[in-house]
């Protein structure tokens, strides 16, 4: 609108005219109201009723009508339909159907416009197109319904925290500073863990029923206001009141008039969260260390680590005592006869505690046994008054639509009916409920208020986090007494590979299960159910039959009959969304699913998921019980009580959250390169204040990702990156409801350490390790003055503190740097090792070396002498990768200044051979399923590491106390400046090697595995980052040729998948997509 002066004048004149007309119109009509006060509409295009009519209605009911659209003043745009271009133009504005106005007038109040929106801000229609956030998870192979995002080591209790319900009024009366938000997000997750029920009630209640029940339970309005206990699973109160919060709340509520008080409490609590942000930098880490629900959700990692530890301990000790196993043996010995007959090939046991939270909660309260009991934060009252700004029925409807029925029903009648009944029910979620409660229709994840209506006898039990941990640890200890082949699924769910145990002891699975259950029962006072089967899937399915407090062994001959009648949704990974998709295909039971062909499934759900479904519905599952897991991402997120008012608050929050991520990365000893910022933004038109206090309400989930130049674990770097991302998203900080930071593409010591172990056994041990001790013992005296040090020259252009140009002072200082190297040496290709001068190397050490290595070292000396330079770098070139940048270790000595260098281009001994052998053995073998062949090739690098570390240890003096005993801090710079390696696919850098690799892959394998495809995508992405589009182009063209030629259609799908992914990255980096001829 140029020529602002005239237009401005005209607009204001029209406004005045409208104001003048309004009273006249009202007068004429008689019936008027102020429903629309604060609403200013602009009518776009043809509407029903017409713009004139709408104008009149707005006059009558206190609204404003704009003839010209103004982004700042117009609150709603009214339209019946809009052309695409206008939709684009009005992106982010509220465009609403005119029925909103007429219906609001009919209803006599301003209806929420959410359901009248013409379209949502995000692509897709608002309601019908909604999908669960978990879809991607469901598609995965994971047998956990939801994988936890937030992972953290298991922290043992630092302080005892009590579960108490903080009353809202109390917080408004001065204690709000102490209330700390709790991630509501971790609650549903832990709920998902304990049982596979839905987050929300499935059947919408008929209003009559609701009415009856609510009348029964809450006859007087007084009790209504009394029961205003907000859902606050608060993490920490340091205030004195918290211990007697319950009593305080009752005294307070009596005197509380509702709406205004609630209003002020809302603003003050939002202020308080802001204050907290500013006051305490450690808020987030505090929140996490206090949030017990969060801790529960992180326990799985903790228990996994516990199992890992068991394994490593056993390795060290050479054997462990298995108390349970011994007992089993005795049992077998007692009744020697019948046990021999059983011969089970493979047996997986799935141990699942029966309604864990409940049984732990009531194990010392026998009076509650056999009664309907639910674990929730709510203290028995089911009703809370509505806070201003909150609009529970809208959310209720939203969730109901989202989760249960895809059919839109007439919104207005439903809304008004819902309004009376559910608006004020307590929205504390039920984390777990007993079987008695389940019989009454109560489900996990249901809101407590609703559950109480279904089952008036329902007793609530508070959370008891200490007890959960105690019982869970107990259970793990019991199981570890039988075997160490355990996979921790959660705090109350474990998979055991019982095959070897059963064979060893000669007992049948049922006896084992019986023994385990009796043990758990005795030591924890809680019941566990055990399902058994020949694979993980069957074991889990058997558990369903075993529950409650039972056991079931699904014999292989029964599998077919058993599985045929199971509903598809009982298969792991088939959630409501996929269930609906399958139902649309006419598939309800596994038997139906068996009729669908593999290709059809793959077409519909993707190659991987399709195959999984195909196998699952036949009871096939080849996943092994994994007791060691590799981490893929580290993240921290919060979506409770996020209410920012200013941009710098959000920034400050992000910085704090980044520090939390840093903490976690460092705890895990990892660094990552890809940083993702995930935000939840209030959905356009959703109520400003969600029904659940501090909750996130209805949100859009957005995510942005950035690649860092190098891997980092620095919170500062992450913070800068995510703040940039946040700004790039151009959001209103006020609308943020949840923030999460995730770091991916991790590299670190964990996985490398494991790989090293494996490799050590295979090759290097024979090569070097065996000779090392003798070399050491022979030469104590001469080793004294020998020095060793290592540096990791950085491949980046940044100056490096330990660059070879600098004289390296001492031994002891440098040594840790070497110890550090295996941590991030995945990426290295060549080694250059500085060789000590002849005088410093003990002859016998040298002799202990393999012949070729010795030759190289000796050669380096002769060359050095010839040049009269102290060059001590030995570049071990690995065949097949001639032009890769080499760097890893150096062994300088301080007696001589160093400078020039020499290179030995001889293929290092066994190394070359070992490597080749290794490659042949593992490269893309179609036989091996389960682990990715491409991934295995990474082992080569690790091999190199192990090799180099042994080289170093050979030259190292172990007797010198200064070298062997002191390990000062690792220089930070070494860990932080990690060189970016040249992009490589399974260790291959050279174009021809990669082509060979790809060709082998495509020709020898009929079905590509996801990991491999992702490896290729990763490689392509690396090429883009490395700005090597030419090679990318060549490789894409090559893949296109060989993959589309392949007879298997899966390969063309794989190519399309790769190409799509690459195009997305190219688009991000260059703003355009590759032209594929």
């Amino acid at each position, binding site marked *: 609108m140029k020529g602002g002066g005239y237009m401005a004048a005209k607009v204001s004149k029209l406004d005045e005219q409208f104001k003048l007309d309004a009273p006249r119109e009202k007068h004429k009509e008689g019936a008027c109201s102020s429903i629309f006060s604060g609403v200013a509409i602009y009518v776009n295009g043809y509407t029903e009723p017409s713009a004139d009519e709408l104008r009149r209605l707005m006059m009558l009911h206190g609204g404003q009508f704009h003839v010209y659209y103004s982004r700042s003043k117009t609150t709603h745009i009214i339209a019946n339909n809009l052309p695409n271009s206008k939709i684009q133009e009005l992106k982010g504005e509220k465009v609403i159907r005119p029925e909103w106005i007429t219906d609001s007038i009919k209803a006599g109040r301003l209806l929420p416009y959410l359901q009248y929106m013409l379209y949502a801000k995000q692509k897709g229609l608002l309601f019908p197109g909604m999908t669960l956030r978990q879809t991607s998870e469901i598609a995965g192979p994971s047998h956990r319904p939801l994988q936890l995002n937030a992972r953290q080591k298991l922290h043992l209790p630092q302080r005892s925290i009590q579960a108490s319900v903080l009353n809202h009024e109390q917080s408004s009366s001065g204690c709000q500073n102490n209330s700390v938000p709790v991630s509501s997000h971790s609650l549903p997750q832990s709920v998902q863990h304990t049982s596979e029920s839905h987050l929300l009630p499935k059947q919408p209640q008929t209003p009559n029923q609701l009415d009856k029940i609510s009348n029964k339970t809450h006859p007087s309005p007084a009790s209504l206001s009394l029961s205003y206990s907000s859902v606050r699973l608060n993490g920490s109160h340091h205030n004195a009141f918290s211990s007697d919060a319950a009593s305080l709340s009752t005294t307070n509520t009596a005197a509380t008039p509702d709406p205004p008080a609630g209003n002020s409490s809302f603003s003050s609590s939002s202020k308080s969260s802001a204050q907290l942000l500013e006051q305490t930098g450690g808020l987030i880490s505090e929140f996490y260390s206090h949030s017990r629900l969060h801790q529960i959700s992180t326990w799985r990692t903790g228990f996994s680590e516990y199992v890992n530890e068991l394994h490593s301990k056993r390795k060290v000790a050479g054997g462990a005592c298995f108390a349970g196993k011994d007992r089993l043996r005795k049992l077998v010995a007692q009744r020697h006869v019948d046990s021999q007959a059983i011969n089970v090939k493979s047996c997986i046991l799935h141990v699942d505690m029966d309604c864990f939270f409940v049984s732990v909660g009531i194990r010392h309260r026998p009076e509650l046994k056999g009664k309907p009991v639910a674990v929730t934060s709510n203290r028995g009252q089911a009703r809370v008054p509505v806070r201003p700004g909150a609009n529970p029925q809208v959310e209720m409807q939203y969730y109901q639509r989202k989760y249960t029925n895809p059919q839109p029903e007439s919104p207005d009648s439903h809304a008004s009916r819902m309004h009376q009944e559910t608006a004020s029910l307590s929205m504390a979620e039920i984390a777990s409920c007993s079987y008695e409660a389940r019989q009454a229709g109560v489900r996990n994840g249901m809101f407590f208020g609703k559950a109480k209506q279904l089952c008036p006898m329902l007793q609530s039990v508070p959370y008891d986090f200490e007890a959960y941990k105690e019982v869970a640890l107990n259970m793990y200890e019991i199981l570890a007494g039988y075997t160490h082949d355990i996979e921790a699924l959660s705090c109350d769910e474990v998979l055991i590979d019982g095959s070897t145990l059963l064979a060893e002891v000669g007992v049948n699975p049922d006896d084992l299960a019986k023994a385990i259950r009796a043990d758990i029962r005795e030591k924890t006072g809680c019941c566990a159910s055990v399902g058994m089967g020949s694979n993980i899937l069957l074991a889990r399915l058997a558990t369903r039959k075993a529950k409650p407090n039972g056991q079931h062994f699904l014999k292989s001959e029964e599998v077919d009959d058993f599985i045929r009648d199971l509903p598809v949704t009982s298969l792991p990974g088939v959630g409501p969304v996929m269930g609906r998709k399958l139902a649309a295909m006419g598939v309800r039971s596994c038997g139906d699913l068996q009729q669908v062909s593999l290709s059809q499934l793959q077409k519909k759900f993707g190659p991987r998921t399709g195959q999984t479904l195909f196998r699952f519905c036949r009871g096939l599952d080849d996943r092994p019980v994994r007791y060691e897991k590799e981490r893929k991402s580290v993240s921290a997120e919060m979506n409770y009580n996020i209410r920012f008012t200013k941009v710098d608050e959000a920034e400050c929050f992000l910085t704090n959250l980044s520090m939390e991520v840093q903490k976690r990365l460092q705890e895990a000893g990892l660094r990552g390169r890809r940083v993702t910022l995930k935000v939840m933004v209030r959905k356009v038109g959703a109520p400003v204040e969600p029904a659940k206090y501090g909750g996130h309400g209805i949100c859009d989930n957005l995510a942005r990702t950035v690649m860092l130049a190098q891997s980092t674990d620095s919170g500062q770097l992450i913070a800068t990156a995510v703040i940039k991302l946040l700004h790039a998203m151009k959001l209103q900080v006020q609308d943020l409801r949840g923030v999460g930071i995730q770091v991916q593409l991790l590299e670190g010591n964990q996985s490398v350490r494991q790989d090293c172990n494996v490799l050590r056994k295979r090759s290097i041990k024979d090569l070097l390790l065996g000779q090392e001790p003798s070399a050491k013992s022979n030469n104590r005296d001469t080793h004294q003055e020998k020095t060793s040090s290592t540096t990791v020259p950085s491949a980046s252009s940044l100056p490096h503190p330990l660059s070879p140009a600098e004289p390296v002072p001492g031994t002891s200082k440098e040594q840790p740097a070497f110890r550090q190297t295996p941590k991030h040496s995945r990426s290295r290709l060549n080694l250059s090792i500085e060789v000590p001068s002849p005088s410093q190397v003990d002859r016998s050490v040298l002799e202990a070396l393999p012949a070729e290595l010795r030759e190289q070292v000796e050669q380096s000396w002769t060359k050095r002498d010839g040049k009269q330079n102290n060059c001590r770098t030995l570049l071990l070139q690995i065949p097949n990768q001639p032009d890769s*940048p080499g760097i890893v270790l150096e062994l300088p000595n301080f007696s001589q200044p160093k400078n020039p260098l020499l290179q030995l281009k001889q293929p290092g001994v066994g190394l070359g051979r070992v490597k080749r052998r290794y490659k042949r053995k593992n490269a893309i073998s179609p036989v091996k399923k389960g682990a990715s062949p491409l991934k295995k090739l990474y082992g080569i690098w690790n091999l190199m590491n192990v090799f180099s570390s042994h080289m170093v240890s050979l030259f190292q003096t172990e007797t010198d106390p200064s070298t062997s005993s002191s390990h000062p801090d690792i220089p930070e710079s070494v860990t932080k400046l990690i060189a970016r390696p040249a992009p490589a696919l399974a260790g291959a850098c050279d174009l021809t090697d990669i082509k060979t690799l790809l060709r082998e892959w495509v020709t020898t394998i009929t079905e590509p595995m996801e990991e491999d495809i992702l490896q290729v995508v990763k490689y392509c992405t690396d090429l883009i980052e490395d*700005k090597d589009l030419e090679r990318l182009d060549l490789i894409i063209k090559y893949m296109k040729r060989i993959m589309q030629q392949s007879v298997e259609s899966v390969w063309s799908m794989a190519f399309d998948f790769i190409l799509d992914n690459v195009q997305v990255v190219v688009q991000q980096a260059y703003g355009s997509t590759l032209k594929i001829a």
Partner: protein
Amino acid sequence: CRRLTEQEYSMVADILCEFLEVAIHLILYVREVYPSGIFQKRKKYNVPVQMSCHPELNQYIQDTLHCVKPLIEKNDAEKVVVVIMDKEHHPVERFVFEISQPPLLSIRFSSPLLIRNDTLLSHVEQLLRAFILKISVCDAVLNNNPPGCSFTVLVHTRDAATRNMEKVQVIKDFPWIVADEQEVHMQEPRLIPLKTMTSDIVKMQLYVEERTQKT
């Protein structure tokens, strides 16, 4: 490993600008921006190239590169882009030379003077020759341009390099201006990578962005 010295950077800039001049001429020839009559066959990097004989055009290209050079010296130029535009001055094709520093100077060149050694230079020459050859055959992968095209050179600088450029501009009386959105923006570009080189002194890649609908 170390960074390049200033002296070496200026040498790198020399090499690159020389190459860019040849490349621009060749692009104009291959993409038929000017009639082939104004071009003459010469030899550069041991391969035949086409150079314009039009004095004004040559001067324009030289002036342009004269201003680009200090940017390359300071490692301020991220991309040098030859844009071919249609009659309406909407870009139809972009030849993007993306220049960055080599990942690290390998140990072989730890002595500053070694960079002048002949093997390195001949290696770089080989790499540049590959670029030239790719440009001369790029019409095979590109669609024909509409008639009446013109060209311009854009430089994408890192950060606020433009301020430092002003001095040079004043001296040369050859001002640079911030590019119009219209000249930079291209509808539905398709990317065709042509060549990437990684040498010890410079890392460069050339790709073409082409408008999907050229006419």
